[in-house]
């Protein structure tokens, strides 16, 4: 029956009055069915999890034989009784939640546990069911409660007629879950359920009436389908008026659903076509959340046939299936090393597993066949990220699918999916947290060895880099060290450092097949003796003044799931005074600190979270914890008024918290780092001049921002980097001394130098111009000259403005003389060399304290031992272990002791602009010169 809904007010009321009794009594009046359902939870070949239907008494549905994503669709009628028995065959506890129907239920234990669930299906509609802990990995499906009379959502016909519809009218039903940045689909035709997997093409024949069940897990999504319109889903209690016609729908919260019916291609001006179907959140479109609704003419070949997408059962390493496009899955995680963690990561590194002999320590490497996909989901992280191609085989994406290089213009929550067709090595990173790495080898099964490809391109703009060359193996070595905590340098272990590399054959430039482990060990050494730890005192250098607070960001403690501690070093004795873990707030990746004017309060950012934490300097206790925005990176006070500024690295602003009434968040304000509508700048490690000008390295827009810290006005945004790789310099940290600002460009291997009005002065190249990644041979060519400052990060200028001590994560410390803006000295550092800051040296002068992510020692650098203003004699005065399991602490160290050194802060704060404001108790330990570090201006 088709009739336009044309209701006057009185008709609407009459309709509502008729509807109410129907709603209340239909379930009781009509005979109800009892459903006895047995499902299991299974681990799929790619490590994802899925529900499997084993039996369903009370239904005529034909289910897939295997576990599927989304899980089997439960069709019941309103008023039916549903009894579900869940057997959990996975390695993690699994339960079943249905919002509004089944909540707070018990889980089935890992490894065969059984749990029963019962409910009466009174609530009409499409409902998500899911497991609370592992939904992002695939444990979700749909429960569809239909009216007993078979009526379903009306559709809007091409002439605008709103047409009542019965389930018998439906040619097809689609179940489409929006999870991460991926659609997971299934279709139901004539009671037969067919899995369509990731980003399927949904097929329909022109004028077919089909029903969409769109559901979501975890993140916000907006579903949009081109050239089609449908009715809003109005809650039954509010029915009665003409409903709203839409073509885009927000799904939000932990789990959500939206169901509608439409007529495929209806409208005289619409018709058949390959209609785009996507999430309309920009970052999700950019990360692959798009597919097609293909409407075919009746009688066309394969008319209305859907095309399944990549499947967890498809062609990936160790899979028996070599024909269907497969998918590997990385969970994006806050966990040290495993920032991109393969869903089957544990199986890959298991020494007794099928790959045990290959000795692969990293959980961040996967192997697929050409045409399979890599899938990412931000399931284990508290902040925003990007999923960005760092390198890829030259010539990838020649098929014009616009997928490689993979990138998004803004950081976001969600995931990503991309099909990879060209054999070779693909490495992905996060632009916000650029040491997060995940790698995929697309391996042509017809060639020997794992294909690394002939040449690769880098996000920086370098193209055609040979896989046989030094740059390739140097990046591979960095990857295997960064992503495997077992490969980090442990200074408490007296044995040589011997990073494990996969013992596998790889195919490189010219088709040569080499053993990866042998190549890397030959080029960069196998067993490397670590320098013994010696304090400055043991080496005859003066003590420091006060304390040094170090963010041992990867250290794990017993009472919290997230990593990171603060290690407080007594600089007068070079002993660890305290560890601060803050288990009461599950402090997450503490990254950078600053202190209040009186030094009572230490401000701490949580970089993989959204909080700024206030800590008592005297006892390490938490004072306050405040949400400021996604991925807060660095914190620093404005010297004149002690206001706190925090860069919101995942977003588009610097947050300012007034020193007065500091715990009142509504007094705080945000200073946008760009004009409205522009790309977010994503500022990271800022600095502030004594006059209150905030200078930020804007990683997403490749510039250095100069802002008036009082008004928030944008003063200047000069370009950063461009010395070696102008495409993506990734400016990451700023230092200021005298009348100059220094921006370190991580991927450009350069320092950009500006005056304080933002005018460029010069650029300092931190690598040799003669470095040729194709011909360079480690140990033969002059190594120091070739890579004096690969991947520079923190770049503070000493309080007198004369010298920069720069931590380069390639493993060096670069000392720059600001009078000439040239490199005065290069000192050895550890892999992941990261943080640097100056503190007072007893008796005059300064030490630079340098931290390392992938080792557990702090280096103490004396840039000018003889205090003659010549920094060519800069020296490492001592090194101190950050591991100390006996130090006073609020939580016991569990693993990765002392690892992850990043932000570092000396107390008292002796920088120019701040030192003058120290209270007298902190000034007493300083010399007269240190108390007034007014820079010498050339």
């Amino acid at each position, binding site marked *: 029956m088709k009739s336009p809904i044309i209701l006057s007010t009185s008709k609407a009321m009459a309709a509502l009055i008729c509807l109410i009794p129907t709603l209340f009594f239909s379930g009781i009046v009509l005979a109800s069915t009892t459903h006895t359902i047995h499902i299991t939870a299974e681990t799929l070949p790619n490590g994802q999890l899925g529900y499997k239907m084993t039996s369903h008494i009370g239904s005529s549905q034909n289910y897939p034989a295997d576990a599927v994503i989304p899980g089997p669709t439960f069709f019941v009628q309103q008023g039916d009784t549903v009894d579900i028995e869940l057997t959990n065959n996975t390695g993690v506890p699994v339960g079943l939640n249905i919002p509004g129907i089944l909540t707070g239920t018990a889980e089935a234990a890992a490894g065969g546990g059984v749990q029963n669930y019962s409910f009466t299906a009174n609530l009409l509609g499409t409902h998500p069911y899911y497991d609370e802990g592992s939904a992002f990995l695939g444990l979700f499906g749909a429960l569809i409660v239909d009216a007993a009379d078979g009526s379903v959502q009306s559709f809007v016909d091409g002439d605008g007629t709103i047409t009542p519809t019965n389930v018998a009218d439906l040619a097809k039903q689609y179940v489409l879950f929006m999870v991460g940045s991926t659609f997971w689909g299934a279709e139901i035709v004539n009671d037969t359920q067919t899995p369509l997997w990731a980003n399927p093409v949904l097929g329909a024949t022109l004028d077919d009436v089909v029903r969409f069940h769109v559901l979501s897990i975890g993140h916000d999504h907006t579903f949009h389908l081109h050239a089609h319109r449908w009715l809003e889903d109005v809650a039954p209690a509010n029915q009665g008026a003409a409903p709203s*016609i839409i073509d885009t729908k927000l799904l939000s919260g932990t789990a959500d659903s939206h169901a509608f019916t439409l007529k495929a291609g209806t409208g005289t001006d619409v018709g058949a076509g390959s209609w785009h179907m996507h999430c309309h959140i920009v970052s999700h479109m950019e990360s692959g959340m798009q597919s097609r609704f293909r409407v075919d003419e009746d009688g066309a070949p394969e008319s209305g046939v859907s095309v399944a997408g990549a499947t967890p059962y498809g062609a990936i390493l160790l899979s028996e299936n070599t024909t269907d496009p497969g998918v590997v899955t990385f969970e994006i995680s806050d966990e040290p090393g495993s920032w991109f963690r393969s869903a089957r990561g544990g199986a890959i590194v298991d020494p007794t597993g099928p790959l045990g002999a290959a000795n692969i320590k990293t959980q961040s490497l996967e192997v697929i066949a050409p045409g399979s996909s890599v899938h990412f989901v931000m399931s284990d992280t508290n902040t925003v990220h990007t999923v960005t191609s760092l390198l890829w085989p030259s010539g990838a994406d020649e098929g014009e699918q616009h997928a490689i290089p993979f990138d998004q213009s803004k950081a976001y929550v969600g995931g990503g999916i991309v099909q990879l067709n060209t054999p070779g090595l693909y490495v992905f990173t996060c632009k916000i947290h650029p040491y997060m790495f995940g790698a995929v080898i697309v391996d042509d099964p017809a060639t020997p060895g794992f294909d690394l490809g002939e040449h690769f391109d880098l996000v920086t703009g370098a193209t055609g880099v040979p896989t046989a060359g030094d740059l390739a193996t140097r990046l591979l070595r960095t990857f295997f060290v960064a992503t495997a905590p077992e490969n980090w340098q442990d200074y408490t272990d007296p044995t040589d450092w011997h990073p494990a590399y996969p013992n596998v054959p790889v195919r490189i430039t010219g088709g040569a097949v080499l053993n990866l482990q042998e190549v890397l060990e030959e080029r960069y050494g196998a067993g490397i003796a670590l320098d013994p730890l010696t304090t400055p005192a043991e080496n005859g250098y003066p003590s420091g003044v006060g304390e040094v607070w170090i963010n041992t960001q990867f250290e794990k403690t017993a009472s919290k799931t997230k990593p990171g501690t603060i290690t407080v070093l007594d600089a007068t004795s070079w002993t660890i005074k305290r560890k601060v873990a803050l288990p009461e707030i599950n402090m997450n990746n503490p990254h950078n600190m600053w202190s209040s004017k009186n030094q009572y309060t230490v401000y701490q950012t949580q970089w993989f979270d959204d909080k700024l934490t206030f800590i008592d300097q005297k006892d390490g206790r938490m004072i306050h914890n405040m949400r400021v*925005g996604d991925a807060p990176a660095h914190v620093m006070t404005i010297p004149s008024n002690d206001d706190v500024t925090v860069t919101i690295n995942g977003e588009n602003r610097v947050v300012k918290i007034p020193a007065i009434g500091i715990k009142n968040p509504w007094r705080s304000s945000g200073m946008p780092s760009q004009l409205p509508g522009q790309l977010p700048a994503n500022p990271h490690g800022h600095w502030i001049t004594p006059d209150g000008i905030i200078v930020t390295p804007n990683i997403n827009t490749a510039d250095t921002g100069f802002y008036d810290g009082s008004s928030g006005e944008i003063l200047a945004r000069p370009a950063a980097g461009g010395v070696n790789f102008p495409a993506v310099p990734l400016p990451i940290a700023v230092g200021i001394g005298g009348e100059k600002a220094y921006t370190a460009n991580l991927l450009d291997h350069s320092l950009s130098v500006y005056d304080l009005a933002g005018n460029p002065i010069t650029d300092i190249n931190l690598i040799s111009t003669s470095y040729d990644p194709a011909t360079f041979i480690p140990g033969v060519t002059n190594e120091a000259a070739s890579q004096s400052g690969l991947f520079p990060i923190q770049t503070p200028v000493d309080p007198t403005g004369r010298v920069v001590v720069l931590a380069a994560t390639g493993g060096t410390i670069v000392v720059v003389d600001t009078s000439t803006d040239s490199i005065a000295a290069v000192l050895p550092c550890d892999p992941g060399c990261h943080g640097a800051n100056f503190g007072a040296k007893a008796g005059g002068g300064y030490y630079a304290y340098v931290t390392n992510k992938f080792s557990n020692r702090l280096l103490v650098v004396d840039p000018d031992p003889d205090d003659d203003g010549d920094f060519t004699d800069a020296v490492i005065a001592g090194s101190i272990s950050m591991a100390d399991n006996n130090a006073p602490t609020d939580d016991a160290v569990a693993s990765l002791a002392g690892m992850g050194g990043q932000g570092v802060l000396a107390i008292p704060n002796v920088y120019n602009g701040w030192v003058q404001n120290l209270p007298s108790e902190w000034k007493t330990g300083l010399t007269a010169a240190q108390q007034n570090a007014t820079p010498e201006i050339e």
Partner: protein
Amino acid sequence: MKYNLCPSMVLNCQKHIAMMGTLVRKNRSTRLLSVVMLTLAFFLLGANGAFADDSGKTHLIELWAERIMPGYEGGNDLFAYRMKKHLIQEDGSETDVTWRYPDEPTIPGPTIVIDEGDQVELTLRHKFDPGDDETLEQVSVHVHGVHYDIESDGTLEYINLVRDQSAINSPTEGMVMSYVYHWTAAPGTAGTWPYHDHNMLTLNGAEDRGLYGAVIVNDHADIETVNGEANTTTSPFSNVGKEYVLFIGDDAFWGTEIDNRTGQQTPLGDNPTLSAARNSYVRFHLIALGTNSHLFRLAGYRWPDSETNLVIQDKAIGALEKHVFAIRANHSSVYEDLAFASRWLGMQGQFKVTRR
């Protein structure tokens, strides 16, 4: 220099210096109980379901996509659409209404106001360095809501399997590139819909970099507003004096207002001050766009929600969702986005109600 998006005649244009958004403590306890609406039958269709205009006008529109360079503040360029020509053909006669639009690119782009039953032939043109930058050439218009066939989808060939539907084809006027789109505001498409680029820059469209605007398809049905007692009242469509088109981006509102007596469109820039005469009826057309979700509020006002049939005082809006409501202006207020990041960015503006 600032972005020149705000003509000097508009006094309430916001300054572009980075605004210090102050977090204001919100009193959420005042969120009112929503009331079930029984009288929304008129909301979508007119009293007799008659479509307002079956005569079917044809709109010939020429739209340009242009670049807007930032001033000394730096940062990346924005892009915007500019109305070059709008002719309306009806019963053999032709009316030129180009004067309704500012003669410059605006964010949001020109609001295309049509009636249910109308057709649109839209020619998009641009001169973005053709031949030099492939991603800039791929500028398009993709529209929501109205009917169009696969040739007018405004997407790339790898999506629509037909052709790149960007303004890249056979330039006949020097280096100008163009593409023609055909839309039909068929019955059932009344409402407010976004149009936006789908192809430029990242090849996902510069839809959050300025290349967007609204299409308003009117059916001239009566409007519903909520009075002081939270009851809905019905008024003739002709009572609506002003339309505010407010796009909600990730970091700012961008607005245009339309004077319904004349059809004149006035661009208002970002986080604009909206003004209305006391006791006049005004209609808000909200469309979100970007990556964030939003929670819109116009303090002290309530309105009927077409989604739930409830009377509401705030509304969650996701990217490219629309939300349209009318109010009777009786007191000055502030409109704002209550989402966490938006509050830090000062995403709000004044709603000033004055005596006539």
